[in-house]
């Protein structure tokens, strides 16, 4: 453990170019995936909260079930889609950061949608009469709920980020863990663990945790300057 700390420290401050490349790709893939998943998941959650339709219950049940989907299964699914022998093979996306982003989007969108659905549902119960009375369109309602619920939605999004940045099973399969191309922190950790380099793997793990904490703090700080209040 202590050795892991020291290794990680030594590594970070040795300005090892490869390590920075790996960190950078981790950030790029995860942040892209979180942004895309939030753009899909947040409105979807709001839409499900605001609309009553026949299959609504089932859609929500499916969403909640998808939250528990093993990432390896998602990885296999995306692999079969993007493989040259699969339906989307023509795009040549397999073993690229794009493929990793797609897999992560599939993994975290249900999580973000489900959490935001719960938040928005409560807010909608509160706002319902007012927004109906004000003669709002469906889109205006969703916009108002997303905006006013942004604090809780940020938390939902960060939960997605936490899940994405630590994910390894799916991106190993669709990214291929190619050095200088698709290797990220988690796949590097799996690789080093496989080689028996526990201390080094542990060090990378610490870098990963530090990164997650820094991103969370940064986002909360940005959020706070906008709010300047208790909300």
């Amino acid at each position: 453990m202590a050795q892991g700390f020291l290794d990680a420290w030594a590594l970070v401050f040795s300005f090892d170019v490869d390590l920075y490349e790996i960190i950078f790709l981790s950030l790029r893939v995860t942040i892209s995936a979180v942004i895309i998943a939030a753009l899909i998941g947040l409105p979807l959650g709001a839409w499900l909260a605001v609309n009553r339709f026949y299959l609504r219950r089932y859609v929500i049940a499916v969403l909640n079930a998808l939250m528990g989907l093993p990432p390896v299964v998602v990885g296999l699914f995306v692999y079969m889609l993007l493989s040259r022998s699969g339906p989307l093979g023509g795009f040549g996306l397999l073993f690229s950061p794009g493929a990793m982003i797609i897999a992560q989007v599939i993994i975290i969108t249900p999580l973000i949608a489900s959490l935001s659905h719960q938040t928005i549902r409560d807010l909608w119960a509160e706002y319902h009469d007012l927004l109906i009375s004000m003669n709002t369109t469906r889109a205006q309602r969703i916009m108002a709920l997303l905006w006013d619920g942004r604090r809780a939605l940020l938390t939902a999004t960060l939960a997605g980020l936490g899940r994405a940045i630590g994910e390894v099973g799916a991106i190993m399969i669709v990214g291929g863990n190619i050095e200088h191309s698709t290797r990220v922190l988690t796949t590097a950790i799996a690789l080093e663990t496989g080689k028996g380099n526990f201390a080094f793997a542990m060090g990378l793990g610490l870098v990963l945790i530090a990164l997650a904490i820094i991103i969370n703090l940064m986002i909360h700080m940005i959020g706070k300057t906008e709010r300047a209040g208790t909300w």
Partner: protein
Amino acid sequence: MKLIWKALVAATVMATASHAESLKMAVTTSFYNSGLSDVLLPEIKNDLDLDVELIVVGTGQALYLGQAGDVDAILVHARAAEDAFLAAGYGTHRREIMYNDFILIGPSSDPAQIAGSQTTVEALQSIARTMAPFVSRGDDSGTNKKELALWAEAGITPMGGWYRAAGSGMGATLNTASGMNAYVVSDRASWLNFGNKGDLALLYAGDPALFNQYAFIPVNPARWPHVKNDLAMQLEGWLTSEKAETLINSYTLGGEQLFTFNATR
């Protein structure tokens, strides 16, 4: 936030902009863990201006990736599976490059007394007779297939509480063996590179039956027109060159030579 994001995007674009031609090759974990690729890839880049992107997987998955057209070439070590791959028309041809060897690892106390065995068969029979704990890859990899072939040769169907199939890669299997203080079949490179040896030691090696032939197979462009067959052929030319021969034969780990070049030119 927007600024940071823009900077990230800009940096990514720059990082990926000036790329040479690249080729994807599926290789086995044991080859990758040997560290030989770290020596060869920069030289290939130098000589051919070619980025070889390695997809490191088990033999079964490597063959499947080739079959699906997801890589341009494969470098594996499982003769029977390779022949089947070629027979099905998934690859153009098979070119032998080099070999390394498998070794028998076990607790340094060697409860089954395999260290003095005359043959691999005899060593395995001792392990089975004493029911000493043994960890198998159990993942249908080249190493796993080789191990099973050796058991068959010894006339033993390994089963029972002493025989554990880990279902994972070489490193993870060595970790398991180290934790259980069990016998295990490994390739020499993975063993030398392995950082968590614990009480394990190399107990038996050197039998020609343990030699492990690596072969290069370009994926068939007749099946998958997008594969970069010309680059694969360039790479094959380089891998069988005199320069490659020197680099491969002189690659050592802990003072030991790992690979022996044996391509025919």
